[in-house]
């Protein structure tokens, strides 16, 4: 199945270019997110059989 993945042209930045930016990155906190919970369960509401 993995072999059937469509080929796409990648003209984006290289691994090294992205690494250099990440190294210099200083993330600013999302001010609105300060009160958000960390214990969000994913998949709970999925119906049992579909």
């Amino acid at each position, binding site marked *: 199945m*993995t072999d059937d993945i469509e080929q796409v042209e990648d003209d*984006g*930045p290289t691994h090294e270019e992205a690494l250099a*930016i*990440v190294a210099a990155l200083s993330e600013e906190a999302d001010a609105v*997110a300060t009160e958000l919970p960390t214990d969000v369960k*994913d998949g709970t*509401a*999925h119906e049992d059989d*579909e």
Partner: protein
Amino acid sequence: MTYRPVFQKEGPAGACVLDGQQLGWKICGGLSTAMGIDRSTRGKVRLTGCMVRDEVTPRDVSGGTTIEQDAHVASLHGVAVEVHTGPRVASMYLVGLSLQSGRGVMLAGNTAPLGKGNVNHRVWANECAGGTPGRPTQALVYDPWSSGPAWWSWTQLYNFARALHPYGEADPRTLKSMGVTGVYCGIFPDTEGGIWGPDVKASIRVLDPDGRIVGRAVNNAGHNYGSLIDTADLAAALKKVGHNYGSVVDAADVQWLIDHYA
């Protein structure tokens, strides 16, 4: 090319039964984590989503899982996941840069924008293509609730992630409706960069610039080098297979290791 894990599909309910609970549709987190571990270990550790769920501690077989729970399981297999939830949500800029710098990302979101109803869900984003730094045009997404990996537009991925209901599906608030621009995710290690340790001589590095071929040979020789290959790892691997490298490991010894074990 970026390493691609084996796709793992969600369901039916009976596909994962733990302590009498049918969890086959509740393990999108376990499946995404399993694919992330596969990618991060380049296929050395392949677990099923149900195995990941079974390793959650403390034991939890109720509903789905959190990113924290699944990240802890990944750590048990030597895979360090950077968790971004709650006050530490990640900007899509960081998600984009992470993908562009060789890291896979496990993203939480909600399937409403995908037309599948209001379900908090988890997917594995393996790589991306196009665009500019921090803003790719598309991402290769392994959605357990689908038939296989597919390229999603960057906008589609963001819409999915921002649709997350952080207080549960019964609460109408989403990240987007609250004005939160960040997303809940787990960022896995870089599998595409070089793995040479700092003490390895240039004359050895030149044989294999990113070290991945030598890494395979070292593993095949029966030595676990961890995340970086140091000179001591090369010596240990050569010793394991009975190769006499003299007083110091040199390029000829490493070439021999490649020829026989890569």
